[in-house]
């Protein structure tokens, strides 16, 4: 039987040879990869395709959102009242702290004016929810439910209640993809809160560890030091906690100390994150250092 007319059971293949198609598609794939890797020319293609696959994302997320909705709807009255009271208490506490903060901020602004440096620019935040979507298991990425329609942009900082989570790598119309600070290809410009020493915190691939490989042995850094964003590079707003140093090893045989930190943000827990819009970085003279951002 040379060619089968039965369209359901072709014995021999018809049309252009698969070898030709294979070569063609390989070239197209490699071209796409080069474009995507070098210049991010493929942003609009990615955005268009992401809208097509958006329903699948929602579908995968559905059991989780349904579970949350059910537990909220079926929560007993006493539970809700208890939660209400707890939240009221928390707000009271925080309002008290905010009062103090406002006074401090005013004072800070006055001092800054006296020192002729630009004042901090007000920040705007938006709460976004993390979608339960598993991405490439070898990367630390996540998907959030706010996209360019809500004003999110590439490189935007993402925080949670405890510290910096990461930044947006691709803002799609309905959702965005973000890279976490613990991804091996991410670097966060930080400073030590205690003495202002600036360095860079690299992701380690472990969700509970950041590496600080660029600190000389003589650096004044101790276990327990808080690392905050320095704002250099312009991607992250300055002064937010990034991590706490949990190990400092000084090997006299090496030039640099081995320092690791634990991220402050709850990277593997929690459902809500904050998108932050902030103005230009503090002043232009702060930006002379090369910017090690991903």
């Amino acid at each position, binding site marked *: 039987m040379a060619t089968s007319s039965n369209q359901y059971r072709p014995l021999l293949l018809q*049309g252009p040879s698969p070898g030709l198609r294979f070569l063609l*598609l*390989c070239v*197209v794939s490699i071209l*796409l*990869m080069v474009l995507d890797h070098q210049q991010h020319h493929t942003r609009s293609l*990615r955005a268009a395709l992401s809208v097509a696959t958006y329903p699948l994302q929602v579908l995968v997320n559905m059991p989780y959102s349904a579970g949350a909705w059910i537990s909220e709807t079926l929560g007993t009255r006493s539970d809700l009242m208890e939660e209400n009271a707890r939240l009221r208490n928390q707000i009271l506490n925080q309002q008290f702290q905010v009062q103090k903060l406002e006074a401090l901020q005013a004072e800070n602004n006055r001092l800054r004016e006296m020192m002729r440096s630009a004042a901090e620019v007000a920040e705007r935040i938006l709460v976004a929810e993390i979608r339960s*979507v598993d991405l490439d298991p*070898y990367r630390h990425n996540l998907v959030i439910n706010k996209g360019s329609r809500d004003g999110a942009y590439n490189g935007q900082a993402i925080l949670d209640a405890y510290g910096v989570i990461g930044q947006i790598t691709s803002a799609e119309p309905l959702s965005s993809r973000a890279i976490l600070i613990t991804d091996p290809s991410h670097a966060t410009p930080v400073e030590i809160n205690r003495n202002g020493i600036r360095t860079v915190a690299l992701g380690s691939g472990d969700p509970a560890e950041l590496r600080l490989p660029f600190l000389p042995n003589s650096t004044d850094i101790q276990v327990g030091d808080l690392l905050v964003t320095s704002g250099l590079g312009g991607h992250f707003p300055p002064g937010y906690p990034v991590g706490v140093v949990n190990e400092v090893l000084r090997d006299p045989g090496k030039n640099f100390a081995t320092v690791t930190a634990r991220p402050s943000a709850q990277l593997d827990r929690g459902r809500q994150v904050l998108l932050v819009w902030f103005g230009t970085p503090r002043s232009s003279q702060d930006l002379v250092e090369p910017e090690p951002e991903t």
Partner: protein
Amino acid sequence: MRLPPWQFWLSLGPALTLALLPLPPWLSAWNPDWVALVVIFWALNYPGRTGVGAAWCAGLLLDVMQGSLLGAHALAMTVVGYLTVKLYLRIRVFPLSQQALAVAMMLGTYHFVLFWVEGIVGGPAPGLDRGLAIVLGALTWVPLQAFLKSMWPRIVKD
């Protein structure tokens, strides 16, 4: 060139969903490559219409959904599709155990291409976890192909 039948897209949906399923981190490296398995199934049973091109489309969709480098999974999937289309007459008559072995080879090639691309781009170098995904993928092949065959017996009868 004839387009893949709608059944291909229909089975691709659940495969993409399973690939995105949130699993605990230690388990997610073990998640079999559902999309690759479905692509192999269709290329094996319907090579006239779902071959290299369909594999490429599936890989591109996976790239977009996983947020990986656009074209990486597409390239790996194209290689798998091509190999399957080239060998489909032989693999089809294999007993199931040997078929699973052949699928393991395909998945190995798939992971090799991905690994290679990641190495060039400078991504993280994963350890032996990929091997687990290959073994589990080959084991998943047995029930998966039986299930897909029972879904559309008329099309894929051989």
